């Protein structure tokens, strides 16, 4: 009998002690535990993904994705009951984002990263915040309205992007006679476009609008054709951490429920500080509605 009492007492002590050890609710989430220990949220950001995540004139990262992430940081502060948790911005590139997330340097990646199933073997994603796809930009007056019209011409793509994959697949599938020039990044692609090395440049439509708006003669170029791929952008978080992922999903669902997401969108895209002028599409509005999960 005393044994049973002892066992019960032991169990009761454990039960009482448990909430004490997990104070302020980092729970079983490794990322939240890490943030609690460091007192810092490390946000990975891009430097030229306009207007998602880029450097302002004063050297601070700003943009649509950054604003969303700052809402998530507020939720982390509330969850850990520690308003003093600070934010540390770490610049990442297409090549470094996975490595830095895998080794725990960054807790959130706030840029313009496409969510796809292959990549989900390596990282997890929060709900979709933007929807885009591959389109082509051409010189105005070249009489091209779809990729098929480029027969015999040269198209440029940024090597190793999802756009390259989509365009090559499309050309192969339809047996088109279009030459492909690969470039290293968007700025070189656009330089090739402006020096007439290529007749068309294929990329995510939002990035094409951005490139055109910043070019020397924006009126000379236009974005044409249908979407050749489907690229939903989402904030990237470490995999195998459902607690942290749920926290982020809850924040996004709330922003989408109370209309804050649409206000953020309009602030950056319609017309936005860089004059990109892309009003909220019906597809994205529906996506916001569908992802606005109830509490």
């Amino acid at each position, binding site marked *: 009998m005393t044994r049973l009492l002892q066992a019960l007492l032991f169990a009761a002590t454990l039960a009482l002690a448990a909430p004490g050890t997990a104070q302020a609710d980092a729970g079983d989430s490794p990322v939240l535990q890490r943030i609690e220990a460091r007192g810092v949220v490390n946000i990975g950001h891009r430097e030229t993904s306009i207007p998602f995540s880029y450097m302002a004139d004063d050297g601070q990262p700003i943009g649509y994705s950054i604003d969303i992430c700052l809402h998530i940081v507020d939720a982390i502060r509330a969850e850990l009951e520690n308003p003093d948790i600070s934010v540390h911005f770490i610049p990442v590139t297409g090549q470094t984002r996975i*490595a830095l997330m895998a080794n725990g340097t960054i807790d959130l990646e706030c840029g313009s990263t496409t969510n796809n199933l292959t990549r989900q073997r*390596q990282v997890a994603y929060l709900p979709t915040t933007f929807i885009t796809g591959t389109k082509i930009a051409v010189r105005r007056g070249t009489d091209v309205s779809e990729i098929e019209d480029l027969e015999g011409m040269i198209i440029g793509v940024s090597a190793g992007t999802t756009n390259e994959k989509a365009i090559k697949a499309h050309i192969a599938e339809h047996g088109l006679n279009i030459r492909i*020039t690969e470039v290293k990044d968007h700025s070189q692609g656009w330089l090739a476009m402006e020096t*007439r090395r290529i007749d068309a440049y294929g990329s995510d439509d939002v990035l094409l609008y951005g490139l055109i708006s910043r070019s020397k003669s924006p009126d000379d170029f236009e974005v044409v054709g249908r979407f050749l791929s489907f690229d939903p952008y989402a904030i990237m978080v470490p995999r195998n951490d459902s607690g942290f992922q749920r926290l982020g999903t809850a924040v996004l669902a709330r922003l989408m429920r109370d209309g804050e997401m649409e206000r953020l969108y309009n602030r950056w895209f319609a017309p936005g500080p860089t004059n990109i002028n892309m009003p909220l599409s019906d597809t994205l509005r529906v996506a916001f509605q569908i992802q606005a999960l109830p509490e």
Partner: protein
Amino acid sequence: MTYNWNWSILINDPYLGWLVDGLLWTLAVSLAAWVIAFTLGSVLGILRTTPSPTLRTMAATYVEVFRNIPLLVHFFLWYFVFPELLPDAAGMWVKREMPLPAFTTAVVALGLYTASRVCEQVRAGIEAVGSGQRNAGRAMGFTEQQVYRYVLLPVAFRIIVPPMTSEFLTIFKNSSLALTIGVIELTAVTRRIEEYTFQGFEAFTAATVIYSLITFTVMGLMRLIERRSRVPGMISLGSG
């Protein structure tokens, strides 16, 4: 680490094929550029040691211009700026009709840059032979050409095999910069695999191993050349 290792992507279709293609492009760019670099560099190196001040200045100017511009800038200048300096029709031909524009530009840029380095090695080799040999040759009644052909160069080229090995190794590694103008060589392929699969660590490991294999092969080859070309008792070529 929350990294999900998956080494099998390296032997999966299409990634294995990409790696092989990337390796072939790396070899093609490097070897073609080396042909330019070695030929032009040797000529320039000889010019730098001739008695003619005009020729010496010309070669010296080439070396200073090409050696002092960073290689990355070379690629950029040859690819984007050079065609704009040509007459319109020629410029358009270079940009649009020239076969393999990125590859050709990369070979030319890398070759001309490395030539300036090879030139200095050749000059150092000829100067190391010393003026005694040169004067002895002249005293024997050799013409300037014959002095170079039969006296200076056979020794000079043997002396510079070790530093030339370094240049040859460097050209393979420098060829990775060709990715900046869109040549899909080994490094570009690993970046592409990373972008498609997010398995960057595996891809970069594979690239490291392949680059090491290339350089080990080159080192072995050069050591063989060094041994075969040695003239016993004439110059010390180290213990190797």
